């Protein structure tokens, strides 16, 4: 395993304190960045190939370059810390265990896009993340890293923490801005994109926590060094969240493109019980289409390799299912989530997500009817690409993958009017 970067301080005693962070080389990248022209930092990040770690994998440097050069309006950096994708818990770890790495990333990035204000939108349930980050900001402010005239330069950056209040959709960048403006979290139509008209109609860049935690390393060691980690067009270290039926679930760092079964067997310790076999893996959070056990061989865990397999890396929430799992029930759990979290703005999503959930629920309960799978696939087809944001796709695509890849189980439930799998603990 390569040198740990993103998790280098995790597990170190006192890792949340400024003193320990500085002792381990912290804030040197900020010092370096403040003496560089902002454009050159943005250029270096572009060259590094860093792609957004929130789910979409959009090139970060390119996103930054969309910020208008000559707008008279204030410019904002918004940090998306609304980590809510089922199976994902990496940003929480970063914020709770290494808040100063996060802050250093936020500060350098704000400098790079010439933003004087950073809003960090933290998931409402993450009270500990909020408290740890809040403490870290106060410590950093006292040392002159935050506020006016940072480290004696002309740089001025203020960081405001903003708590969400329980709504998955607020992780969608435009819904997040609506929520930050004090409204219901309804996604906005794009264009205009946030760089042109974002928060309060001003130029805004929104990045994920893990994405920005990469930036201090790029500034410190350069894009050429960064490009050597990972694979072509998928550079850098990545935090993988392993959960489900594993011996050692948790957050692990590996280069982008690490082999899926290496992650599962070597880092995750393999299946939790010796008498079980692998049944399926959801590779990138609940929104990503499922892979059957056969499909899990030779899968490089990066954006493009998973897209080529008609699924996605998403937020790298790897959920491992053993052969005791009923796939109809697993899908029911996933769809219950989406039915609960649809914001209700667009009809295909508002009605569709509840509709497909209620059909899968009845199939699971042994009350399915002939033709239910066809209806499900048909409704899914009418959700995809027909709404303002991609939430409807995120509900429909996994549903289609479960039905298409495990059709036999759905048909058996409908025919036998019950689940044929023996109950296992």
């Amino acid at each position, binding site marked *: 395993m390569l040198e740990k970067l993103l998790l280098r301080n995790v597990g170190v005693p006192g890792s949340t304190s400024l003193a320990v962070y500085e002792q381990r080389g912290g804030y040197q990248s900020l010092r370096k960045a403040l003496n560089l022209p902002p454009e050159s930092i943005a250029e270096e990040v572009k060259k590094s190939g860093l792609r957004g770690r929130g789910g979409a994998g959009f090139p970060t440097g390119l996103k930054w370059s969309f910020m208008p050069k000559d707008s008279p309006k*204030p410019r904002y950096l918004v940090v998306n810390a609304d*980590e*809510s*994708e*089922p*199976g*994902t818990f990496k940003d929480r770890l970063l914020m709770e265990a290494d808040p100063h790495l996060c802050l250093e990333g936020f500060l350098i990035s704000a400098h790079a896009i010439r933003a004087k204000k950073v809003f960090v939108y933290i*998931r*409402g*349930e*993450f*009270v*500990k993340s909020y408290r740890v980050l809040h403490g870290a900001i106060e410590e950093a402010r006292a040392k002159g890293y935050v506020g006016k005239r940072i480290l004696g330069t002309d740089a001025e950056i203020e960081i*405001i923490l*903003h*708590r*969400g*209040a*329980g*709504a998955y959709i607020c992780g969608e960048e435009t819904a997040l801005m609506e929520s930050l*403006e*004090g*409204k*219901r*979290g309804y996604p906005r139509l794009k264009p205009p994109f946030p760089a042109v008209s974002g928060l*309060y109609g001003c130029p805004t860049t929104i990045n994920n926590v893990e994405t920005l935690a990469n930036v201090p390393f790029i500034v410190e060691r350069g894009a050429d060094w960064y490009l050597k980690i990972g694979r072509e067009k998928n550079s850098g270290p990545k935090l993988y*969240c*392993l*959960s*489900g*039926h594993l011996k050692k*679930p*948790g*957050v692990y760092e590996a280069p982008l493109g690490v082999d899926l079964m290496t992650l599962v067997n070597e880092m995750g310790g393999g299946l939790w019980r010796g008498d079980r076999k692998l049944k399926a893996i*959801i590779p990138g959070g*609940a929104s990503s289409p499922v892979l059957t056990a056969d499909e899990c061989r030779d899968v490089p865990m990066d954006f493009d390799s998973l897209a080529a397999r008609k699924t996605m890396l998403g937020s790298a929430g790897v959920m491992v*299912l053993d052969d005791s799992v009923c796939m109809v029930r*697993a899908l029911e*759990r*996933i769809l219950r*989530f989406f039915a*609960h*979290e649809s914001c*209700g703005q667009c*009809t295909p999503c*508002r*009605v569709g*997500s*509840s*509709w497909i959930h*209620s059909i899968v*629920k*009845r199939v699971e309960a042994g009350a399915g009817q*002939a*033709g*239910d799978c066809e*209806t499900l696939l*048909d409704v899914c*087809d009418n959700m995809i690409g027909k709404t303002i944001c991609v939430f409807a796709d995120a509900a429909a695509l996994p549903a289609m993958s479960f039905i298409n890849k495990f059709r036999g189980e759905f048909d058996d439930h409908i025919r036998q009017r019950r689940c044929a799998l023996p109950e296992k*603990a």
Partner: protein
Amino acid sequence: MSERPAGTGGLTVFPSDPARIPGFVQGSIALRGPAAPEGITPDPGRPLSAESLMEIDRAIANYPDRRSALLPALWVAQREQGFVGTKPMEEIAGKIGVSPAFVAGVVSFYTMYHTKPVGNHLIQVCTTLSCYLRGADRMVEHLRKKLGVEVGGTTADGKFTLITVECLGSCGTAPMLQLNDDYHENLDPIEKVDALLASLK
């Protein structure tokens, strides 16, 4: 495909009457937030304390637009009174510069704001996929029996409220629950849940 309305050329139409939707279960459309059924008989709560009002003013100063302080203000109200009643909603509306109805609309969108009092110990069990795979349903059953309440209910002494929630971002340490502000993780075996409950009495 027999249930699909005829003549739509392969497109599913959404009938205006939900009862006509194949497979649709009446009442299954999720309404966001807990306020939907409760809203019929709103709980007024109390006027906010001077201290809370000052804290809201400080929150307003953080933002270029005072409306951004709405969610922070609601958090202040909930921390003071345990829920957000209609009286604080009106006060907050006045401070933020929006209508009380707008505030109520925002409150009902977010699941974490309560519009009625909840138990001193709010137990929220995550039952989404990763926690389900590690025994979350058994934990809910256990808590239900142990506390003698249904999911969504509060014990007679007002001490405990038990609810199930969607993913809390603690999938690697499943099963887990959130007790008020704090996460309690790796709650397998179930005796750990008993020990947690015992520590609260």
